[in-house]
């Protein structure tokens, strides 16, 4: 096989180019032939070059003409639908590679953050010191991974208890949500997907809570519903580019007012269990249209 990597550009050296052409042409013809035989399909190839007066044709001039005739007899749209030239083809290839790249980077990120989670789990005894150096982005992704692992754990527990019910009693009520969520939904959703959809509009805009992993997968949604009494834990909506969370800041203001209004009344629009409609002013706030 080739030992050196070849850059994808016109070969300047004449003899090298000619040699390459000969080899690769042979290889190309072989590939067409194999494709035709293996899959039992009709194909043809025509190669014009400065090295040959007549084009190289596979399978034969007659065969190629037959195939071309079959091609040309098809409706115009069928012909052009899967037709490519160099530019189109290269763009397609670039697109494919970019997709792979995105996925690879995402996987890498997940691996990184999982490592982080292991370290944080180890350091749980010393308080939350492990989390201090982390940015919001990191924290958000970390939360996502923790949530994902939790779902897996609950699912595992559930499957083990259903197999042999004599084992430990069912998980406490608080966790039953997560258990259900993990089994029936993919990693992408959290439980209460309806509620998630309601608020998805707000959260769609990029905001500080959008980590690499947690984009559009607000793992904290469940938490919000469970912790109504928790001050300041409002919805962290996106608000344009520089993404500071007005909502939480706002609530913090309110809670500092003497006397502070009872948490429920000021925050309940945010934290109503259904995760329903946000107070109108919030939407205007974030998305003036």
């Amino acid at each position: 096989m080739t030992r050196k990597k070849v850059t994808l550009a016109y070969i300047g050296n004449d003899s090298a180019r000619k040699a390459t052409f000969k080899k690769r042409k042979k290889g190309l013809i072989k590939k067409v032939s194999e494709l035709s035989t293996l899959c039992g399909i009709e194909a043809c190839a025509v190669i014009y070059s400065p090295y040959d007066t007549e084009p190289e044709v596979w399978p034969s001039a007659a065969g190629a003409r037959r195939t071309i005739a079959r091609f040309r007899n098809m409706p115009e749209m069928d012909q052009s639908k899967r037709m490519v030239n160099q530019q189109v083809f290269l763009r397609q290839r670039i697109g494919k590679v970019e997709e792979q790249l995105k996925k690879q980077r995402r996987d890498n990120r997940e691996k990184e953050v999982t490592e982080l989670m292991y370290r944080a789990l180890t350091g749980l005894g010393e308080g939350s010191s492990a989390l201090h150096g982390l940015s919001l982005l990191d924290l958000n992704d970390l939360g996502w991974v923790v949530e994902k692992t939790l779902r897996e754990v609950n699912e595992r527990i559930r499957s083990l208890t259903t197999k042999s019910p004599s084992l430990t009693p069912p998980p406490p009520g608080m966790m039953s949500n997560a258990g259900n969520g993990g089994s029936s939904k993919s990693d992408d959703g959290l439980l209460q997907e309806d509620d998630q959809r309601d608020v998805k509009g707000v959260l769609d805009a990029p905001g500080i809570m959008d980590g690499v992993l947690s984009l559009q997968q607000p793992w904290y949604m469940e938490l919000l519903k469970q912790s109504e009494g928790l001050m300041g834990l409002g919805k962290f909506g996106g608000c344009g580019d520089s993404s500071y969370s007005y909502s939480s800041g706002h609530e913090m203001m309110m809670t500092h007012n003497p006397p502070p209004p009872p948490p429920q009344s000021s925050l309940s629009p945010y934290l109503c269990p259904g995760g329903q409609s946000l107070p109108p002013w919030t939407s205007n706030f974030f998305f003036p249209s």
Partner: protein
Amino acid sequence: MAKKPSLGRQKIAIAKIPKKNHLQVTFSKRRSGLFKKASELCTLCGVEIGILVFSPANKVFSFGHPEVDSILDRFLASKGARSDGGGSTHNSGTRQLFEVHRSASIQELNMILTQVTEQLEVDKRRGEGLDKATRSGVGGGGHPRQFWWESPVQEMNGMEELEQLRSSLEELKMHIVGQSTRLMMDASSSFMAPFLGLEYTARNDHGDQFDRKPDRDQVNNAAELVQYLSFPQENGLF
């Protein structure tokens, strides 16, 4: 562990593939590879190629450089004593210009493709490095990997361990939320304070962040707040 690697390269007999779905997959992959080889041949050696491929489902795929139709026309024409076929760009002046533009953009696309492919390789290697680090337990913190909870959850069987893991995770989650909230409060308060007539002072550990001027109105009304803060979003204000 990562998903199992594929079967790898296997020797295959050149005869029609018996299984239909196997055939479809093979067709798809090989067709793609064929076009790739053709594209490379065109780029490397500056030649003109046309390829037609009919799929098992009777659809047609075609690759052509410079264009499928021009190659086919050229081929068909050369077999008979026909005059040159139609073509709006037959005027050699415009045609040459057209070709120059085309080859310039192809060149550029090839470069982009090369770059992106290289980036992919880099990130793939990085991924493998991360895998190795996780397995050998050298990942940054240098902690040993013997912690039982690092293995895939699916393989765990100890109920006690699972529940312990769960509670640890829950605890960690709380810490994360707490830390996030703290960070956000810092960020937004330092930002918001000037607008609300509050002086921001250095945060002490008890989280009390504000010195209030007693004679300023407190913003305890949503509408007021919106007024204060309703500036245009596109502004680079923040």
